[in-house]
């Protein structure tokens, strides 16, 4: 339970708010690379502000505030040029740093353009997505987390959700929900609807633990029938501060990305790489498939017969910004208390002029940032991959059959190798 004041401090992400200032110390994905290749300028919204994201003919990216400083028309309807973005309304041209380079209707001798500047951020491409940084300079490095740079077959499911990002992040430090939301509730639905829910999600949690580390909080679970040597406890997986969760198992590696679009909207992206051991040949991908996850049916009810649809139901039904003054936490929610503390600590760090955690500035440490993540998930072995694909969001992927085949062939190759063949 929190006071309303504390709840507001932790959930408001707009400019000038304490949390908004903290969150502006990080890079965020705002588009798929494919989208800027299809059309080189796009309107995006991040942390309660609108931006025009563009790709110049030489392949570099830029991002400026959406509304032209001249007369406020949208630069998302601008003309992309070699040096920047030109407003479609009167032709004012802005360079990648926001400098005004041209005002065609003004006299040549005027210095007016030297006194006008658009707010600009930084934009880069990594791993099939375009990322932006809209915080203070000097900008940190775009972190090269393992999933974004590893080899494998990529698959991006996503959804725009009408709720605050923090309640999604609190789910990332809430191991018990798996046993119930994806276990008992899934089984209940399966019994009613005539499908078999995955057994591996139904195991009882004996205990959970949380450890803070340089990039967030590692969560661990000891499941009934398992030992502390099993991956779920010995390795666990992390909430990656301040808006991701690294998860995976059985050759599926994933970053769950929760971009705070504004106070009550979150872009949920399942950045997934399929890289099963033993896979004969990884298919090349000219374009990475991205697809929107359906989460409401034609009656407006939540679609809850797949894992991520169940998560979305929980997050969205908590409300646009869940009211933490009337929540009732138990001891099993200790990870949530720890996450709130971590946010408060980092709010204090920014207020004191320091970098918060998970801000990367050392290029030598950014070639690839490996995060701890269990391989044998829930003790389900290779079956976890097929269960997760068939009963998770991947069922909506246009490459589902290819992915199932990839994992099946990899499992057969591993079995052959193990048999000495």
């Amino acid at each position, binding site marked *: 339970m929190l006071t309303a004041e504390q709840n507001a401090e932790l959930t408001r992400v707009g400019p000038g708010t304490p949390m908004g200032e903290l969150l502006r110390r990080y890079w965020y994905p705002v588009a798929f690379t494919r989208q800027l290749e299809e059309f080189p300028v796009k309107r995006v919204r991040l942390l309660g502000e609108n931006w025009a994201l563009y790709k110049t003919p030489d392949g570099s990216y830029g991002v400026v505030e959406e509304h032209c400083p001249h007369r406020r028309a949208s630069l998302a309807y601008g003309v992309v040029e070699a040096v920047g973005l030109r407003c479609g309304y009167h032709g004012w041209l802005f360079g990648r740093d926001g400098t005004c380079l041209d005002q065609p209707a003004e006299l040549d001798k005027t210095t007016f353009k030297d006194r006008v500047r658009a707010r600009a951020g930084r934009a880069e491409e990594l791993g099939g997505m375009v990322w932006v940084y809209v915080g203070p300079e000097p900008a940190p490095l775009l972190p090269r987390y393992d999933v974004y740079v590893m080899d494998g077959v990529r698959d991006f499911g996503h959804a725009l959700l009408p709720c605050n990002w923090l309640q999604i992040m609190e789910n990332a430090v809430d191991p018990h929900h798996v046993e119930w939301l994806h276990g008992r509730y899934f089984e209940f639905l399966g019994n009613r609807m005539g499908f078999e829910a995955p057994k591996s999600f139904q195991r009882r949690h004996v205990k959970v633990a949380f450890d803070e580390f340089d990039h967030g909080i590692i969560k661990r679970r000891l499941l009934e029938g398992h030992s502390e040597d099993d991956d779920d406890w010995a390795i666990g997986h992390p909430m990656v501060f301040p808006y991701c969760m690294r998860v995976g198992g059985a050759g599926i590696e994933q970053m769950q990305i929760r971009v705070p679009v504004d106070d009550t909207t979150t872009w949920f992206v399942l950045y997934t790489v399929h890289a099963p051991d033993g896979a004969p040949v990884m298919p090349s991908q000219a374009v990475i498939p991205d697809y929107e996850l359906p989460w409401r049916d034609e009656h407006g009810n939540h679609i809850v017969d797949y894992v991520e649809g169940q998560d979305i139901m929980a997050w969205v039904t908590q409300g646009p910004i869940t009211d933490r003054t009337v929540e009732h936490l138990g001891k099993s929610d200790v990870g949530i208390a720890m996450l*709130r503390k971590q946010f408060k600590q980092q709010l204090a760090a920014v207020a004191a002029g320091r970098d918060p955690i998970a801000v990367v500035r050392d290029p030598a440490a950014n070639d690839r940032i490996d995060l701890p993540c269990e391989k044998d998930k829930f003790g389900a072995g290779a079956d976890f991959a097929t269960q997760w694909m068939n009963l998770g969001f991947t069922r909506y992927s246009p490459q589902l059959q290819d992915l199932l085949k990839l994992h099946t062939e990899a499992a057969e190759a591993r079995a052959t190798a193990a048999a000495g063949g």
Partner: protein
Amino acid sequence: MAERPVAGAVGDGGGLPEDPHPLPPPTATFARDAERHLLDAPRHCPRCGAAISGPGGLVVEWWAATDRVFYCWCRSCDWTGTVVQVDRHIGHEAAE
């Protein structure tokens, strides 16, 4: 039935500390718990005494059996710990 405590009346004893946002209406399911949180949550760090109920820290309440546990963090000295409200002090309980 006791009257609902008044916001801002801390110094008068028993009132609610300031909260810039309204409490749930008295008829709401959990209004009493929200009120008790505002009344009972520690307001100062047990280690250094700095205020922790506002921007100076964090107090998250959870329940364990009959205990009300306040998970506290102090921005001033970075102390983290739990404070448990106690109605009756119980010594050893023999193992069954």
